C-alpha cells in the first residue's frame, strides 16, 4: 500500500511541477511568440492580401474593443482611402485550428481576398489551402452579403480534393469574420475616417 | 591407399554446359554496341566522350568500392562495363562530365553494390540511376534543351516532347524511316531502332534473353498506343511512332530483361513485359513526363518478385 501511495504521490507532484512551470513559461513567452508570428507569418500574409496598398499594412493596426474582446484589424489604403480591412479569424480544421486572414472591401461589400496563416493540416491535402494560391483566389470578389459555402453545401467554392473538412473550415472562418465585420462596422468606419484624415 | 597423384574431387555433375557470367555480360555488350555506334554516327564526338566516360567511371566505381569494402574484385565479370554502357546510351550526347560520373556512381554503387553486388539488385542499375538523376537535374535530361547548340541534319526536336505538347500534328512530318535508322534526338544509344532490334535478335537467338519479355513489352506498348491513337488520333500519336521513339526499344531488349530484376518463369515474364509496355504508354500519354519507360521499368522491377511467384507446381505437390 505504501508503495502505491508513493507512486501516486510522485507522479502527482511531478505533474504539478511540470504543469505549473509550463504555464508560467507560456504566460511569459506568449507576447514574444505573438510578435514573432505577427512579423513572420501574418505580416507577409497581410502584405500579400493588401498588395498595392499605399500605407504600411502591417504597422497600421486598429484595435477595437476593450480587454478580452479586443480584436485587431489591419487596413489597406487604396486611392487615398482606407478601403480594405483585414479581419483575423479562426476555423476548426481537420488537424486543429486554422488561422485565417479575411480581407473585405468596404465599398464593394465583397471579399478582397483570404490568406491562411497558421494551420496543422495534412501536407498535399488540407495544406493546399495555404500552399495553393489558386484555391484561395476563388474567394476574391465573392459578396459578403451571401454566405460563403463549398459547392457540396450549395455554395460556390469548390472544395480541395480530399480535404472537405479543411475547405469547410476556411469557409466557416470567412463567414465568422464577415459576421464580426458587420458587427463592428460602425465603430470601424468611425475609426477609419479618423485615419483618412 | 597413398597415391602421389592428386586427383580433383568435386561433387556431381562433372559436366558443365560452359556458360559463364563474364561471357553472358560481354555478349550483351556486343549486342548493344551497334546501337551505341549508330548513336556516335548521329551525335558525333561528344557522344563518344559520354560513352567512354560512362564505361570508364562505372568500372572505376566498382573497382574502388570493392577495394574499399575489402570485397573480391568483380570488375572482370564485365557487369560494370555493361551498366556503364547502357547508362551512357540513355544519356543525351551533351551530358556534362559530372553528370555521367555521378550517374555511374548511382548506378553501380547505389543501384547494385550496396544490395550485395551482381544478382542482388532489385532494380536495373542503369535505369535507377537515370531515374534519380533525371528527378534531381531535370534540365540536363531535357533533350531539347541539351542539344540546342548542335547542328544536326535531322528533325531538331525530341519527338516525344513535341508529341506530348502539341499533339500528333507536330510529329506527323517525321518519317518513320528516319526514326528507324536513328536520325532522331534522344539518348545516345536509344535512337536507332534497326540496331537495337538486331542486337535484341542476337541476344534472343543466343539464349541470353528470353523472347517473352521483349516481345510482350513491345506488344503491350504497341497495343496500348494503338488504342489511345484510335480514341483520339489528334492528341495521341500512333503506335509505330511510340515504338520507335524514346527508350522503347532499348527498354524492350536491354533494360527490362535485366537478369536479376526480371522474372524467370514464362507467365510472369509475359505479365512483366506487357505491364511494362502498358505502363510506358500510360505515363507517356496521361502522365506528366514525356517519356515513361524509365518509371515503367522501375515499376515492373518492383513487381518482379511478386509475379515470379506464379510458377508451375513442383512435381508431387498437390496444393
Amino acid at each position, binding site marked *: 500500500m505504501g*508503495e502505491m501511495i*508513493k*507512486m501516486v504521490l*510522485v*507522479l502527482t507532484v*511531478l*505533474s504539478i511541477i*511540470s504543469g505549473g*512551470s*509550463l504555464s508560467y*513559461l*507560456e504566460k511569459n*513567452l506568449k507576447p*514574444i*511568440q505573438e510578435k*514573432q*508570428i505577427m*512579423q*513572420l*507569418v501574418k505580416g507577409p500574409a497581410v502584405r500579400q492580401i493588401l498588395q498595392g496598398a499605399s500605407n504600411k499594412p502591417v504597422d497600421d493596426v486598429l484595435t477595437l474593443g476593450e480587454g478580452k474582446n479586443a480584436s485587431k484589424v489591419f487596413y489597406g489604403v487604396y486611392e487615398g482611402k482606407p478601403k480594405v480591412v483585414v479581419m483575423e479569424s479562426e476555423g476548426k480544421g481537420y488537424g486543429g485550428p486554422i488561422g485565417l486572414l479575411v480581407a473585405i472591401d468596404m465599398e464593394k461589400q465583397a471579399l478582397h481576398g483570404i490568406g491562411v496563416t497558421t494551420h496543422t493540416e495534412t501536407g498535399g491535402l488540407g495544406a493546399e489551402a495555404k500552399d495553393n494560391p489558386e484555391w484561395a483566389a476563388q474567394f476574391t470578389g465573392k459578396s459578403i452579403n451571401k454566405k460563403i459555402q463549398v459547392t457540396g453545401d450549395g455554395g460556390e467554392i469548390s472544395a480541395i480534393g480530399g480535404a472537405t473538412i479543411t475547405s469547410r473550415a476556411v469557409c466557416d472562418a470567412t463567414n465568422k469574420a464577415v459576421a464580426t465585420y458587420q458587427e463592428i462596422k460602425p465603430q470601424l468606419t468611425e475609426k477609419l475616417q479618423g485615419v483618412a484624415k | 591407399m597413398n597415391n602421389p597423384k592428386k586427383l580433383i574431387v568435386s561433387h556431381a555433375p562433372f559436366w558443365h554446359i560452359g556458360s559463364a557470367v563474364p561471357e553472358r555480360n560481354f555478349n550483351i555488350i556486343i549486342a548493344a554496341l551497334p546501337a551505341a555506334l549508330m548513336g556516335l554516327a548521329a551525335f558525333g564526338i561528344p557522344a563518344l566522350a559520354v560513352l567512354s566516360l560512362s564505361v570508364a567511371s562505372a568500372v572505376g566505381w566498382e573497382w574502388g568500392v570493392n577495394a*574499399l*569494402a575489402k570485397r573480391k574484385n568483380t570488375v572482370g565479370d564485365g557487369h560494370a562495363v555493361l551498366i556503364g554502357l547502357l547508362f551512357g546510351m540513355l544519356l543525351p550526347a551533351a551530358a*556534362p562530365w559530372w553528370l555521367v560520373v*555521378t550517374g555511374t556512381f548511382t548506378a553501380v554503387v*547505389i543501384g547494385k553494390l*550496396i544490395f550485395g553486388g551482381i544478382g542482388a539488385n532489385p532494380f536495373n542499375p542503369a535505369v535507377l540511376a537515370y531515374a*534519380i*538523376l533525371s*528527378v*534531381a*537535374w531535370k534540365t*540536363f535530361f531535357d533533350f531539347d534543351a541539351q542539344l540546342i547548340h548542335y547542328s544536326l541534319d535531322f528533325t531538331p526536336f525530341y519527338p516525344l516532347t513535341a508529341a506530348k505538347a502539341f499533339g500528333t500534328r507536330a510529329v506527323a512530318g517525321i518519317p518513320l524511316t528516319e526514326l528507324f535508322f536513328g536520325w532522331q534526338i534522344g539518348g545516345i544509344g536509344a535512337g536507332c531502332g534497326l540496331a537495337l532490334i538486331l542486337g535484341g535478335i542476337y541476344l534472343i537467338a543466343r539464349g541470353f534473353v528470353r523472347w517473352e519479355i521483349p516481345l510482350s513489352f513491345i506488344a503491350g506498348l504497341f497495343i496500348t498506343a494503338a488504342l489511345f491513337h484510335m480514341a483520339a488520333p489528334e492528341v495521341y500519336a500512333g503506335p509505330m511512332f511510340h515504338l520507335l521513339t524514346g527508350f522503347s526499344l532499348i527498354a524492350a531488349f536491354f533494360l527490362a530483361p535485366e537478369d536479376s530484376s526480371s522474372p524467370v518463369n514464362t507467365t510472369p515474364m509475359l505479365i512483366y513485359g506487357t505491364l511494362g509496355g502498358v505502363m510506358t504508354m500510360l505515363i507517356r500519354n496521361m502522365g506528366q513526363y514525356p517519356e515513361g519507360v524509365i518509371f515503367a521499368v522501375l515499376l515492373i522491377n518492383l513487381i518482379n518478385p511478386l509475379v515470379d511467384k506464379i510458377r508451375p507446381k513442383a512435381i508431387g505437390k498437390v496444393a
Partner: protein
Amino acid sequence: MAKSIVQEFTKGLWKEVPPFRLVLGLCPVLGVTTSVQNGLGMGLATTFVLLCSNILVSTLRKVIPSKVRIACYIIIIATFVIVVEQVMKAFAFPLYQTLGVFIPLIVVNCIVLGRAEAFASKNGIILSIADGLGIGLGFTCSLAALSAVREIIGKGTITIWGAPLFEGPIVNIAHTFPDFVPFEFMVQAPGAFVCLGLMLCMMNLVPSK
C-alpha cells in the same frame, strides 16, 4: 573518477555516437537534415532535453518508484520538450516552423528515453551530465555532418543560422564553382536514406575501438 567522466563524455562523440553506431533516433535524422541550420537546431534541442532530463532523472532516481518510472521519465522529458518548443517558438520562429512536428517528437526519441532508462537512472548526477552532454553533442555533430553533406550536394549551400533568422553566413558553393548544379535528390526523402546508409557504411570501415 575523473577518468570515467571523460570516458562517459567521449563515448557519445565517437564510440556510441547515436545515429551511426547505435542507429537510434533515425526519425529526426532522416526528417530534418535538409540544411545545417535545421540539423544543428534539432541537435541542440535534443541535447538540451537530454541533458536536463538526465540531470532530473538522475537526481530523482532514488525517489521514482520503479513501476512507474517510464511514466515519470516521459513527464520529465515532455516538460523539457515543451520548454524547448515554446522557447524556440518565441526566439527562433523560422527554425520552429521548419522543424515543425519533429520538436514534439523528441519526446519519443529513443535516445532521450534510452539514456534516461539505461544510464541516468543508474548513475550519479555528474556522470549523467557527462553522458547526456556527450551523447547529445555526438547526436548534434552527426546531424550536422549528415545535413552538411546533404545540403552541400543537394542545394550547394551551407546554412548556419541563415536567413530569415539572422542574415547569417550562408556559404554558397555556386559562387566558387559557377558550374555546380545541385543534386536535388539528396535533400529529398530517399536521398536521406541513401546518404545515411553511405555514411553508416563509411563509419563501419573505421573500427569502433
